[in-house]
């Protein structure tokens, strides 16, 4: 085990975080004779984020990255595990402490078309968080702060009384970011914040994220499935597959020399916008493994080019391999 960074530098720390969903466990299904199954959306993951850094969480659909975002903010309650925010046990927070924590950790969602309430004006959407946490005293102060936020994210102040449907996807995402900033958070979790945007707009929003990080000293947990985006924005990266973290490490090192077979497969499959670079190819066989009642052993079992007997029996733990990198594989 490596020496964890000093406690005050570590903003978020997650250990053994787990979320299992029971399927067909209700009385109607039981009466119908359906077997109860367990969907292990997130199955014992560990990671940490230091103050000021950007951790990129990458994986394909169904790997559990979005669920992780919700677990860490307690929008969904974890089945097991520890979440430590600034040294305090987040899962043990009282209701009032949790409410305060909602100021410190904020989310930016994927779909700009549904993450803003279509019936409320921008003024309301941006001032509501401040209202909830009692951060402003008068209407005038609210107004000033909202105008300030709009300016910060690059939107004209004349937009303040408009409704979300009057804006484009990129603009809405800026509003969503402004909403997250309205309570002066320390950690911002982006759940695929640029996936629904056009490439040229995506670039604008990514730049905005960077600028805001520098200006406000923010820490990011950036979730995406697009590897180039993750590479661009992250300091460190964690790769998830079917509920487990298979590899972590500094972005440059991980992308230049991936260690885990799944990371290698992901990188090989990405088509790069350059005909001179190699064509995308798949190094894994078969389909994505299922998170429902998964067999013991490594999740990649059955698809992996480096498989051996032990892989089907024992799930490989995430171990340190030096240089700040961790891998979960028996056969390196």
């Amino acid at each position, binding site marked *: 085990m490596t020496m964890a960074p000093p406690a005050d530098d570590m903003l978020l720390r997650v250990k053994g975080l787990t979320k299992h969903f029971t399927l067909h466990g209700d009385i109607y299904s039981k009466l119908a004779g359906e077997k109860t199954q367990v969907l292990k959306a997130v199955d014992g993951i560990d990671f940490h984020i230091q103050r000021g850094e950007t951790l990129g969480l990458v994986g394909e659909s169904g790997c559990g990255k979005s669920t992780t975002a919700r677990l860490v903010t307690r929008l969904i309650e974890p089945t097991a595990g520890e979440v430590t925010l600034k040294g305090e046990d987040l899962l043990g927070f009282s209701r009032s402490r949790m409410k305060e924590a909602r100021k410190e950790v904020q989310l930016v*969602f994927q779909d700009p078309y549904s993450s803003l309430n279509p019936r409320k004006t921008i003024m309301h959407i941006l001032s509501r968080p401040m209202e909830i946490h009692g951060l402003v005293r008068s209407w005038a102060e609210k107004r000033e702060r909202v105008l300030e936020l709009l300016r910060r994210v690059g939107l004209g102040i004349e937009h303040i*009384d408009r409704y979300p449907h009057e804006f484009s996807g990129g603009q809405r995402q800026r509003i969503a970011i402004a909403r997250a900033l309205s309570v002066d958070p320390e950690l911002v979790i982006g759940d695929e914040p640029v996936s629904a945007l056009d490439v040229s707009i995506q670039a604008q929003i990514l730049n905005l994220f960077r600028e805001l990080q520098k200006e406000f000293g923010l820490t990011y947990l950036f979730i995406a499935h697009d590897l180039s985006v993750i590479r661009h924005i992250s300091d460190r990266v964690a790769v998830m597959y079917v509920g487990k973290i298979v590899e972590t490490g500094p972005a440059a090192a991980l992308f230049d020399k991936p260690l885990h077979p799944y990371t290698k497969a992901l990188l090989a499959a990405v088509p790069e916008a350059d005909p001179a670079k190699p064509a995308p190819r798949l190094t894994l066989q078969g389909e994505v493994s299922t998170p429902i009642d998964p067999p013991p052993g490594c999740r990649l079992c059955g698809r992996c080019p480096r498989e051996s007997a032990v892989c089907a029996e024992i799930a490989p733990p995430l171990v340190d391999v030096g240089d700040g990198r961790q891998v979960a594989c028996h056969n390196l």
Partner: protein
Amino acid sequence: MTEIQADKLAELQAVRAPALGGRLIRWRTALGNAWHELRKSRTASIGAVMLVLLFGACIATPWITTYDPIKQNYRERLQPPSEKHLLGTDRMGRDIYTRLLYGGRRLVAIALLAVTFGLSVGIPYGVLSGYFGGKVDTVAMRFIDGLLAFPGLLFYLLVVTLAREWKIEGIANDAVLVFALGFAFMPEVARLSRGTVLAEKQKEYVEASRAVGDGSLSIALRQILPNIISPLIVNATVRLGYVILIVAALSFLGLGTPPPTPDWGSDLAAARDYMETAPLIAAFPGLAICYTVLAFNLFGDGLRDILDPRLAER
């Protein structure tokens, strides 16, 4: 400067304006938008015009009628329409035009109150049940299912009979009607709101509100409710016409409004005896009922067309 420029300037001014000024401007533009939207559907426009006439007549009744709707005047009974009596007189010599207007006024008031009552109980019931889900939702909805299973007509008969038994009269009688009609409307509203809340609950802005620290009650009633109100409004509008029909029907059967209070239904019933000699006495209350129900239906239908495609557009 053009209207658009004036609006833009007003908007910019509102950016720094104190609360009241900004809100007024928003209301004015909202109303302007509503009028513009209304014009898009011919059905809605026609219905709206009909309703405006109806409501106008109801409000202006004391000023546009000259006769007493209740006082009998046997000397002038069963008169055909003339200069003196616009629509003629009924079997007791009362001016039909006056009776129609006073009757309409009462019916519309009852309908509005009943529907409002149904909405104010049904909406919170359905919304909270849908939002909180789980066992609360299951129990609440089974109760609604039970209410819906009860035949409407029997319920009204029950209520009316009880009212008779307990000798409830006058305004109290009307209140009983309002309660009965509202209560019968409530389960439908609850079901509808719950259904839409279930779908709306999954949307990201609801999650975002939770992430920001908003409380459940606040989210359910302040954030979600404005988004699901459209189908409810359409439903309520059509229901208004239907309620009037029910009251008229009950009165027609002799169960709703006791005479001599003007009521289209009881007037229609009373006119049955005179179908051969003075058919117009039946025609006018009948036409009034048709007109009113049609007006509400057209407006409700048109409203649905206006509200739905906009939702689909996004």
